[in-house]
């Protein structure tokens, strides 16, 4: 009943108790659920991210993508409860239900996070150099303040801030939004985390600044061979930054696979609809865009069975029961009774000449 798409030897992972299955596995999530009261906001999320792998998690509001990230970080808001298992290589305990003392040793060291809003992630009353140094000193990765400060200058240089030696003594309000996000990234990368979790890190940024920050994030994790979990609602961003993608809807992963495959040959009807609706170059003869009917239900109010069935043109009675996960590869699969035929090419949109160029 549980999709276990991300590990080829499914039997080995099903137990999910020991440390991650293979030496390269950094993050192993099994059967993750998030509940509030009796309501399930996220259920049966399974995936593995290996060292150096960049995995995107896409979905619309209420899909559960941010809750998934927060449960990995142990940062769920009060009243929400995570179930299942989240294991991180090199950490001896499960991250689900770990107490705050244990999590604070992991957070900022093994796992780091970049949030959407850099101004709220930074302390406005503290110079940015000290904020970077703090994460080094708290985890004792630098022996003293002088060397932590030197490391902070170095990190600010890595994220391309002009004049890093002076920037360490500036306060967050003295920076622009993009520069602040680079400071947040410097803090996140300070301890060379095994896993970097990014939750809509560029959504609040301008186009040219977004390009800059995306480039820095990708380079930052590549240089460290960190695993990355990248959450966004923007298909183009995820296709640019990640190699693999998971599509969430209604608290479940409905499809996953390599970016190239999922975006060119989607199998789940929701993925197909999402790609169609986001393609602004493909229009019908009246010049109108493809749409998905209806709207995303509020979290926890999705239909039973297939979560997408009340918006799906292909839904039948069969969809009132929950579709099984159909694996199509070691890291790919989908959960749909009426998948898009395998030959189905995405929408009507063949890459148009000027856009398929080198850029």
């Amino acid at each position: 009943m549980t999709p276990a798409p991300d590990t080829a030897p499914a039997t080995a992972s099903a137990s999910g108790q020991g440390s991650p299955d293979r030496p390269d596995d950094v993050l192993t999530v099994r059967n993750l659920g998030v509940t509030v009261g009796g309501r399930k906001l996220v259920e049966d999320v399974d995936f593995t991210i290996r060292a150096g792998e960049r995995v995107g998690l896409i979905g619309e509001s209420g899909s559960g993508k941010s809750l998934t990230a927060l449960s990995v970080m142990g940062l769920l808001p009060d009243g929400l409860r995570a179930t299942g298992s989240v294991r991180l290589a090199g950490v001896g305990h499960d991250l689900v239900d770990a107490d705050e003392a244990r999590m604070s040793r992991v957070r900022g060291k093994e796992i780091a996070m970049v949030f959407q809003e850099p101004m709220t992630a930074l302390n406005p009353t503290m110079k940015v150099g000290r904020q970077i140094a703090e994460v080094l000193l708290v985890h004792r990765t630098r022996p003293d303040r002088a060397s932590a400060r030197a490391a902070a200058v170095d990190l600010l240089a890595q994220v391309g801030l002009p004049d890093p030696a002076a920037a360490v003594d500036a306060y967050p309000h003295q920076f622009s939004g993009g520069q602040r996000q680079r400071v947040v990234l410097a803090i996140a990368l300070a301890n060379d985390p095994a896993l970097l979790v990014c939750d809509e890190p560029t959504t609040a940024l301008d186009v040219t600044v977004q390009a800059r920050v995306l480039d820095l994030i990708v380079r930052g994790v590549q240089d460290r061979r960190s695993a990355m979990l990248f959450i966004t609602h923007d298909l183009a961003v995820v296709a640019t930054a990640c190699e693999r993608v998971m599509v969430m809807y209604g608290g479940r992963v409905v499809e996953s696979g390599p970016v190239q495959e999922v975006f060119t040959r989607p199998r789940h009807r929701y993925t197909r609809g999402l790609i169609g609706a986001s393609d602004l170059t493909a229009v019908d003869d009246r010049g109108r865009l493809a749409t998905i009917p209806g709207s995303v239900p509020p979290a926890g109010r999705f239909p039973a069975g297939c979560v997408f069935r009340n918006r799906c043109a292909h839904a039948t009675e069969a969809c009132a029961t929950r579709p099984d996960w159909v694996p199509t590869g070691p890291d790919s699969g989908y959960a749909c009774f009426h998948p898009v035929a395998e030959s189905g090419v995405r929408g009507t949109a063949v890459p148009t000449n000027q856009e398929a160029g080198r850029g």
Partner: protein
Amino acid sequence: MAEQPTSAPLAPGPQTGPVDAISVRDVTRDYRRPRASVRRPSPPVHALRGVSFAVPQGQRFGIVGESGCGKSTLLRILAGLDQPTSGSVAIDGRDITGLRERQLRFVRERLQLVFQDPMSALDPRMRVGDIVAEPLVAQGHRHRKERVAELLEAVGLRADAANRYPHQFSGGQRQRISIARALAPRPKIIVADEPVSALDVSVRAQVLNLIADLVDELSLTLVFVSHDLSVVRHVCDRVAVMHDGQIVETGSTEQVYEDPQHSYTRRLIAAAPTLDRALSGVSAADLNRE
């Protein structure tokens, strides 16, 4: 079109043929920041530095730019919510610069705004029916109930939505309510400021289609402001690219996107990720290259 900002042919000459819906001539807007020093006043901020363009009746005109480029200041001036420091703005051929609030009444009838965030643009304590009817009240309209029902239907909401409150609706539905309110006084010009930026992808297409339908059916003139080039490209016939308080390039959307002339426009287009480009191998480093 050239690297030169605000090219002369843009400025509307003596009127021949139909009057432009909007004509903006050499508009500047300076702000003063609060004093930072007792000795001297802080230097003025030049939010708009000589902006000129004209939007003919029925055109869909896009304004693209990043934060701080002056596009919001320009919108406020177009809507008569702010006055330019110099230059003039005419709506349907009537100059609106220097007019007092009560003289701006015709602007409020002719031109309506749709904002980015439908939650903060709608009063949470008012029922949807009253929100949509509010511009009608201001204008002493009769048969408001019928008009509200008609408007809600036009934007794809059920008539009983009138009795509910904004928080009972999703983001896309709230944006439909904002659009219904904007259409209430039967305006001929809609100015939309990032109307789909806060919406989910699957809902964005619906709202864009709705806007296109309404613009067609009601023969509206549309001014559409966005940071998202692909949205403007889909919606608009013509586009102006703003940077640093100036229009650096203007032209038909196809022409500007296919063959951008100004270096800033080129950078903007190169930096925007698209699915097709990503799938053909364009990486984050490539977007950042230019």
